[in-house]
C-alpha cells in the first residue's frame, strides 16, 4: 500500500480513491476508439487513402507520371500537386492554435510561419507528405499504387543540425519564405530576447559566485498507441468526419476554413482517444484535407490512418540550453540568464510556443523574486521531422536547464540545493519562502532519505564498480484556472429528468487523462443536494459538433477541474429553478427555500418541506435544464510546486544506470480523483525515464534519413524496465473557485530527466548534459572510452 494523501476538505466524491468510470469499458475491450468505429464492417463501401512520403530530406518533384498508378485495379481516385483543388488550398501550418482555443485561418497564432503546402511539390524532410495521394479499395492497393508513380526528383542539399542551419551559408529549408533558417519574430512569444528584467550584467557583477551550465534535449516521440486517423464522408454538401482528434470544434474550423465550406456543413465526431501526449496539438494536419477531397471526388467514405512508423510525424521540441546564474555567498540569487536554440525541423508549427511559453511561464511564477533575468530563444528550420509539443510545452526542456543550474550553483556555494531553491524561488502572489515549494521539497527529501545524500562521487562503492547518488528537480505545476483564460468559454449542462436521473453534458474528448472520471465525480459532488447516486447519472462521452456543447479541448490536464468548476455554477442555477417550481406549492418565495439530500424545505421552518422527486412529477415533466457557458476565472492565485526526487545506481564499468527509486510530488490544490492522479504520477515516468535514459530518434546524418521510426529500435519502457515509483499527492496551495485545483498530467515527467541526471552526477561526480544518458555517454564522461 502507498501513503494515501489526506484531503484538505473531505468530500463525498471528489478526491476519492475509486475506479475510473471507463475502467470496465476499457478493461473489457468494449470502449470504441475511432479505428474501431470505422472498420470495413461498419463502412463496407469505404476506400483507403495513402499518401506519398519523401525519401529525400530536401527535394522537389520536377515531374510525376501517374499513368501506372491510375491503371492499377482497385485505385478509385488520385490527387496530385498539380490538381486544381489541391493547388487551391491555402498555404497553412499545422499549429493554428496553442491547442486550447478555437482560431480561424486569419487569426492563426503563428501567421508569419505559414510554411506548409498540402501535398505540394516540395519535400523538406524524409517522411514529408508530398505530391500524391491515392484512394483505393484497400490500404495494400493504395500503397502499391504509390510505388508505381514515376517521379523525377530534383534533390537539394540539406541541413540537420540547428547550429549549422543558423550559419549564413547553410542550405535554406524554406527558400520560398525566408533568406535565413532562423524563424521570424514570434507574434505570440515576442522577440528573440523575450524576457528582460532588471540588468543581468549588473546582477552578475554583484554576485560572489557565478555558475554556468549547458543542457540538451533531443527529440523523443509521443508514442501514442492509437495511430492518428480519420474517416471522411462528403454527402449532399455535408462533410462528416470521424476522428481521434481531441479538439472537435477546432477540427471543424480547420476543415471549414481550408475547404471553404460553411461551419454548419462540417460535422466532427470524436470519442475516446488512445493517448495524446501532445501529438495532436498540431491538429491542423493536411491529411484531414486530402482525405476530404478524395471523399468528395469518389462520393464514398474514405479512411486515412497513419501506421506506427508514420506516427513519428513530430517530436518533443529539441532544445539546446545554456544557463548562467549568480548569487551572493548567503545564497541570494542576483541574476539568471537562459539562452535556447531549438531545432524546429522542417515546419515551424508550435516551435516558438515550446521555446518561449514554458520558460516565460516559469519566469512569471517561479523567478518572480530574482531581480535580474534575461531569456532568449531561437527556433531554426532544419530538414528533420518537425518539432511539436509532448506532454508539456517547453517545460521539460527548460527544467533540464533550470534544475541543473540550481544544482551547479548550490554546489559552488556549498549549499544544499533544497535550501537554495527555498531561499529564492516563488511566484509574485506570495512572499518568500513559498509555502508550497517548502512543503513539496521537504516531503520529497523525507521520502527519498535526502539526509543520507553524500557529496558528489563520495559515496560507498557497491560490487566494486557501482556507485549511488541522489538528485531532485522542481518546477511550477501545470495550469491553474487563471492560466486557462485563453480557452474562451467552458460549457456544461445538466438535464434533470422527472424521475430524478440526470443527463450530464460536459463535452471533452477523453484521451486517457481521466477528465471524464473527474467530470462524473464533479457532477455527483455538485448535485449532492439532490442526493444523486452514481447510477442516476448518464454521461455521454461522444463529442459531436452537430449536437454537443462546445468541447473543452483535451490539450491539457486542466480539463480535470475546469468543467467541474462550471458545474458548481450550473448546480446553483438548477437549485434556483427547482426552488422556483416548489415555491408556490409550499406557499413561500423561492429565496426562502433550500434543498438538501433531495428534500426542499423552508429555511425558516424546516418542517415545511417536500421531496424533490415528488415535486418533479408535478411539473410539465420535461427535463429541467441548466446550461452554463462561462469564461475560466481570471483570479490571480499563483500556482503550486511539483518535484521529482531520484536515487540511481551507476555501473561505472558498463555505464548503465539503474533507477532505484523515484518520488513524484504534486501539490494539486485539490485532488479531483486520487487514483487517476496517482496513475498520472506513476505513468508519466515511462516517458520521463525514457527521455532521461534511452528514448531518442536517431538519424543517419550523412543521408538525412531517420533510422528508428518503429518501436523495436525506438525504446519504450515495458513493465520489466519500470522502477519503484512513489506518488505523493499534496494540497497546500489553493487556486480560485470551489476546488482551486491545477492540472498535473504534463508535469508528472517535467522534473524526471533532471532529477535523474543530478542523481547521476551525485553518484559519479561527472556531468552528462545531453539526453538521453545512454551508457556510452557515461563511459565517455568517466574517460573510459
Amino acid at each position, binding site marked *: 500500500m502507498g501513503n494515501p494523501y489526506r484531503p484538505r476538505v473531505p468530500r463525498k466524491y471528489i478526491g476519492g480513491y475509486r475506479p475510473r468510470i471507463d475502467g*470496465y469499458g476499457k478493461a473489457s475491450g468494449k470502449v470504441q476508439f475511432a479505428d474501431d468505429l470505422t472498420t470495413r464492417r461498419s463502412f463496407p463501401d469505404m476506400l483507403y487513402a495513402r499518401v506519398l512520403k519523401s525519401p529525400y530530406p530536401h527535394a522537389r518533384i520536377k515531374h510525376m507520371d501517374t499513368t501506372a498508378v491510375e491503371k492499377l485495379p482497385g485505385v478509385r481516385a488520385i490527387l496530385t500537386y498539380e490538381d486544381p483543388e489541391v493547388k487551391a488550398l491555402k498555404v497553412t501550418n499545422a499549429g493554428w492554435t496553442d491547442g486550447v482555443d478555437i482560431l480561424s485561418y486569419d487569426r492563426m497564432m503563428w501567421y508569419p510561419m505559414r510554411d506548409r503546402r498540402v501535398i505540394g511539390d516540395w519535400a523538406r524532410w524524409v517522411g514529408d507528405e508530398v505530391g500524391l495521394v491515392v484512394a483505393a479499395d484497400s490500404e495494400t492497393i493504395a500503397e502499391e499504387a504509390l510505388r508505381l508513380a514515376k517521379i523525377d526528383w530534383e534533390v537539394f542539399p540539406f541541413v540537420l543540425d540547428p547550429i549549422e542551419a543558423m550559419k549564413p551559408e547553410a542550405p535554406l529549408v524554406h527558400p520560398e519564405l525566408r533568406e535565413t533558417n532562423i524563424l521570424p519574430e514570434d507574434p505570440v512569444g515576442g522577440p528573440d530576447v523575450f524576457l528582460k528584467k532588471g540588468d543581468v550584467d549588473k546582477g552578475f557583477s554583484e554576485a560572489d559566485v557565478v555558475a554556468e551550465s549547458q543542457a540538451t534535449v533531443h527529440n523523443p516521440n509521443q508514442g501514442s498507441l492509437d495511430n492518428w486517423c480519420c474517416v471522411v464522408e462528403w454527402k449532399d454538401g455535408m462533410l462528416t468526419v470521424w476522428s481521434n482528434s481531441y479538439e472537435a470544434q477546432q477540427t471543424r474550423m480547420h476543415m471549414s476554413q481550408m475547404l471553404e465550406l460553411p461551419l454548419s456543413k462540417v460535422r466532427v465526431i470524436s470519442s475516446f482517444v488512445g493517448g495524446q501526449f501532445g501529438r495532436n496539438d498540431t491538429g491542423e494536419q493536411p491529411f484531414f484535407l486530402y482525405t476530404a477531397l478524395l471523399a468528395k471526388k469518389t462520393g464514398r467514405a474514405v479512411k486515412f490512418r497513419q501506421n*506506427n512508423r508514420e506516427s513519428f510525424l513530430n517530436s518533443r521540441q529539441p532544445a539546446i540550453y545554456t544557463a548562467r546564474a549568480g548569487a551572493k555567498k548567503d545564497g541570494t540569487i542576483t541574476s539568471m540568464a537562459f539562452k535556447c536554440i531549438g531545432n524546429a525541423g522542417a515546419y515551424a508549427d508550435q516551435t516558438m510556443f515550446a521555446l518561449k511559453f514554458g520558460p516565460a511561464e516559469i519566469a512569471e511564477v517561479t523567478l518572480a523574486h530574482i531581480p535580474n533575468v534575461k531569456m532568449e530563444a531561437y527556433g531554426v528550420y532544419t530538414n528533420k521531422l518537425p518539432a511539436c509539443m509532448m506532454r508539456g510545452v517547453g517545460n521539460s526542456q527548460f527544467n533540464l536547464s533550470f534544475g541543473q543550474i540550481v544544482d551547479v550553483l548550490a554546489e559552488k556555494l556549498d549549499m544544499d540545493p533544497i535550501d537554495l531553491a527555498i531561499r529564492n524561488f516563488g511566484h509574485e502572489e506570495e512572499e518568500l519562502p513559498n509555502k508550497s515549494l517548502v512543503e513539496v521539497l521537504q516531503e520529497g527529501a523525507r521520502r527519498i532519505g535526502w539526509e543520507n545524500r553524500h557529496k558528489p562521487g563520495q559515496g560507498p562503492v557497491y560490487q566494486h564498480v557501482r556507485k549511488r547518488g541522489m538528485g531532485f528537480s522542481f518546477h511550477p505545476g501545470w495550469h491553474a484556472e487563471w492560466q486557462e483564460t485563453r480557452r474562451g468559454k467552458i460549457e456544461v449542462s445538466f438535464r434533470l429528468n422527472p424521475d430524478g436521473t440526470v443527463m450530464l453534458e460536459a463535452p471533452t474528448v477523453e484521451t486517457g487523462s481521466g477528465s471524464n472520471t473527474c467530470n462524473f465525480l464533479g457532477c455527483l459532488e455538485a448535485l449532492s443536494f439532490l442526493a444523486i447516486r452514481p447510477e442516476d447519472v448518464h454521461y455521454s462521452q461522444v463529442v459531436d459538433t452537430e449536437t454537443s456543447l462546445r468541447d473543452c479541448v483535451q490539450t491539457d490536464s486542466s480539463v480535470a477541474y475546469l468543467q467541474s468548476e462550471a458545474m458548481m455554477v450550473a448546480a446553483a442555477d438548477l437549485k434556483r429553478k427547482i426552488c422556483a417550481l416548489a415555491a408556490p406549492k409550499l406557499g413561500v418565495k423561492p429565496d426562502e427555500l433550500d434543498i438538501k439530500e433531495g428534500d426542499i424545505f423552508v429555511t425558516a421552518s424546516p418542517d415545511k418541506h417536500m421531496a424533490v422527486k415528488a415535486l418533479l412529477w408535478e411539473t410539465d415533466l420535461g427535463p429541467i435544464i441548466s446550461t452554463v457557458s462561462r469564461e475560466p476565472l481570471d483570479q490571480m492565485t499563483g500556482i503550486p510546486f511539483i518535484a521529482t526526487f531520484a536515487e540511481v545506481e551507476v555501473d561505472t564499468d558498463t555505464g548503465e544506470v539503474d533507477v532505484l527509486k523515484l518520488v513524484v510530488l504534486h501539490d494539486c490544490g485539490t485532488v479531483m480523483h486520487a*487514483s487517476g492522479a*496517482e496513475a498520472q504520477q506513476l505513468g508519466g515516468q515511462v516517458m520521463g525515464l525514457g527521455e532521461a535514459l534511452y528514448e531518442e530518434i536517431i538519424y543517419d546524418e550523412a543521408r538525412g534519413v531517420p533510422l528508428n521510426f518503429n518501436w523495436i529500435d525506438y525504446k519504450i519502457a515495458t513493465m520489466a524496465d519500470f522502477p519503484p515509483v512513489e506518488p505523493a499527492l499534496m494540497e497546500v496551495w489553493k487556486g480560485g473557485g470551489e476546488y482551486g485545483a491545477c492540472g498535473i498530467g504534463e508535469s508528472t515527467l517535467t522534473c524526471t530527466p533532471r532529477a535523474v541526471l543530478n542523481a547521476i552526477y551525485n553518484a559519479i561526480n561527472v556531468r552528462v548534459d545531453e539526453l538521453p544518458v545512454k551508457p556510452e555517454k557515461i563511459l565517455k564522461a568517466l574517460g573510459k572510452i
Partner: protein
Amino acid sequence: MIEKKNASPEMDNSAGEAASRAIRLRVNQVWHEFVLERDIEPTETLAYVLRERLGFTGLKVSCDEGACGACTVIMDGKAVLSCMTLAVEADGHDILTIEGLAEDDPVIVAFAEQCEPGYGTAMQCGYCTPGFVMTAKALLDANPTPTLDEVKEALSGNVCRCGCYTAVAQAVLHASEKISTRGGGAHG
C-alpha cells in the same frame, strides 16, 4: 464477403476447389469459414480478419509489427500477437478474443476496479488494455498464482505508453486472488 458460421469445420465440406482453399477459424467457440482469395487474401493477418471482417475490435492494431502487444489474443491457450500471425496460419485453430471472456471475468474485473492508494488505475487511455488483459489471462490460465516477477516477465511484451505498469501488475495479482477465491478462471 461471405461468412459461414458452423458448429464445427467438419459440417461444411463444400466440394471442389473452394473447399481446398477454405480457412476455418474457431473464434470464441464459433467457427467462421472463409474462402481464400474470395473472402480473404493470403496476406491478411489474423488481427485484420478478426477486426475488419469479423468485428472483434477489442484487440487493437497499433505497431502492426510485433512490438507493442495491443493485438494480443489467445490461440490454443497461448497469448499470441495477432498482427504477427497470418489468418491462414490460424486455420483450424481455437482463438479467444477479449469479447469471448465472461462479463465478470476476474481479469477484466480486477483491471476495471484497480484503484488502491499508491498504484493508480490499471489504465488511462485504455488502448493497450485488452492486450494486457489477454496476456494476463493466458498467464493466469497457465499459472494461477504467479509471483510479481513472473507477472512482470509475462507482461513485458506489452507496451503501455500511459505507463500504468504498477497498477497492471497489481491488478493481475488481484485477479489471481479472485481466481483462487472463485476456484476457476475458465474461458467465458
